[in-house]
């Protein structure tokens, strides 16, 4: 059952120098209970995709358009702002990158949890408080009852991110979007948070969009990955498929620049040379072409089409990379 259907999502931002096409034709489906990874470098449009789905892109200067952006069968772009507010925090929730700055410094943790319960579940008084304590315990915060009156600065980074997760899951959302949710944390805490999200969302059948530039995190958590470059999905597939058979020049480059600790081969890390394209200029050919190490002559002539590789795996790449991936 498809929970979220995105078709040809286009988000642009008006600037003095022209429109920046931050997201330029993204399409994907998210099944119920599925954990989808969104990877790519900074500026590839991962966060803007998420913000567009939540309809949190400030308009103006932003503008979001899509052939379809359907959540649970409802077209989100046709909802009014007031209708959208009913969904946000309730059926769709979001966890952000920096837990240091994502919580309001002058409000207690308790208040920041309770306000969501009050807003969406009409819970108030002792019942709401019980629920808040329960939520904090679920995300593994010790002596939760006492901590309700504490302020964010009295928590460590990992604890704050747990609070953020508790807030996000407070109304049992059907979709959880985590935008670089573990990037600001150190690795041991990262692992704990990932386990927590995995456990809680599996238990509840929550669909997750996990945004990260860290391939390792995505590999350990997600069912499927979308690799994004220059505002578009360039390769998509089930996690195993994609990691065993990266079929886009950019995915290959991304993997080549990521250290591996599983001991498969000892090799140098190769950075991707150059910079991503300017998203103000229209892009006609493959956006990755100027930086691609595996381009073929055909790349100079035609833009790449989606090439189906079987098993739900596809790539928008003209080069045939199958043999290379075996070598890796």
């Amino acid at each position, binding site marked *: 059952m498809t929970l979220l259907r995105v078709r040809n999502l286009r988000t642009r931002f008006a600037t003095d120098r022209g429109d920046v096409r931050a997201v330029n034709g993204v399409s994907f489906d998210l099944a119920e209970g599925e954990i989808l990874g969104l990877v790519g470098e900074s500026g590839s449009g991962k966060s803007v995709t998420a913000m567009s789905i939540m309809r949190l892109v400030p308009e103006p200067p932003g503008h979001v358009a899509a052939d379809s952006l359907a959540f649970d069968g409802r077209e989100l772009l046709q909802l009014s702002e007031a209708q959208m507010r009913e969904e946000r925090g309730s059926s769709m929730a*979001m966890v952000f990158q920096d837990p240091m*700055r994502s919580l309001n410094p002058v409000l207690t943790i308790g208040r920041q949890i309770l306000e969501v319960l009050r807003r969406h579940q009409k819970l108030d008084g002792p019942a709401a408080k019980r629920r808040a304590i329960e939520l904090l315990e679920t995300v593994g915060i010790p002596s939760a009852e006492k901590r309700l009156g504490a302020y964010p600065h009295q928590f460590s980074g990992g604890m704050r991110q747990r609070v*953020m997760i508790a807030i996000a899951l407070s109304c049992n959302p059907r979709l959880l979007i985590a935008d670089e949710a573990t990037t600001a944390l150190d690795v041991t805490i990262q692992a704990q948070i990932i386990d927590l999200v995995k456990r809680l969302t599996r238990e509840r059948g929550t669909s997750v969009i996990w945004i990260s530039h860290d391939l390792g995190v995505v590999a350990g958590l997600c069912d499927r990955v979308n690799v994004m470059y220059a505002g578009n999905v360039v390769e998509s597939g089930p996690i195993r498929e994609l990691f065993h058979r990266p079929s886009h020049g950019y995915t290959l480059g991304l993997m080549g620049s990521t250290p591996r600790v599983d001991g498969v081969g000892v090799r140098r890390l190769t950075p991707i040379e150059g910079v991503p394209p300017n998203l103000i200029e229209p892009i006609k050919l493959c956006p990755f072409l100027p930086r691609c190490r595996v381009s073929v002559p055909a790349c100079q002539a035609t833009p790449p089409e989606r090439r189906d590789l079987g098993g739900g795996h596809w790539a928008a790449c003209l080069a045939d990379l199958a043999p290379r991936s075996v070598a890796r």
Partner: protein
Amino acid sequence: MWSYLGRRLIQVPLVLLVVSLMTFAITRATPGDPVTIMLGMQTSPEAAKAMREEFNLDRSLPEQYGLWIAKVLTGDLGRSMRLNDRVTTLIAERLPISLQLASAGMLFALLVSIPLGVIAALRRNSWIDYLCTGYTVLGFAVPNFGLALILIYVFSIRLDWLPITGIGSSEAEAGGFWKHYSPFIIPAIALGSLQTAMLTRLLRSSMIDVLSQDYMRTARAKGLLPANIVIIHALKNAMIPFVTMAAVQFGYMIGVQVTIEYIFAVPGMGSAVLNAVINRDFPVIQGFTLVIAVFFLVMNILADMMYALLDPRIRY
């Protein structure tokens, strides 16, 4: 918190000592002899001598200061040379009026700056924001006595809506609510114009800063209502510098309402100090300055306390 308050309170007498020394030095260094001003040029040498002795003006400067400060410590600020009243009595009469006028001025500043600052920040670069910026520039540029004269011309003389004088007069005190408080309106607006501009600008910029913070995005992602987001999540943060500034400015207003009190014939602290300076009424100048300094210090300490109260991250 309490130890910080203790440390701050210890500083108070030190600051007051410096203030009293400076006031003393300035009054004595200013040309003009109070006795001559008070008794006139044609007075007999005996009368002049008697007055000098009464106010210790025949003693050396260190002695004069020492005698004065010793009395101050017992709560006695001396007598006015001109009015023959005790300085403490004068303060008791005039301080409440000044406090009322300063409160009215601050109330006006708050009533205008809070909504204006918030709306300007929310509607950045809109006509209302430009209006707000224009208004604050005027508030900074137009001196309060200039504004006072314009307001008097328009609202008292042309439209005849508001009285010009009457603060503290027996007629106003005896009258009803409007009779009592209407004389405050024009002076309060004139007095508070600078603070209005200052506070509007401060709130606008701190709101803009707060609105761009990550926790505001979190608040929107929670689906909270816009009024809740602005008032609870944004304003509570933006108010931290605002409240501190307002408290400090309130202390400041008590001391600087001289011109306003003069224009509107307000029998407050400012006009009393002004008259005392003109007449070289040393005990009044020194006593009033000291009280204004105390008030200013108290407001500053209060501002710091509020800072800690509003921002849980601050612990002294």
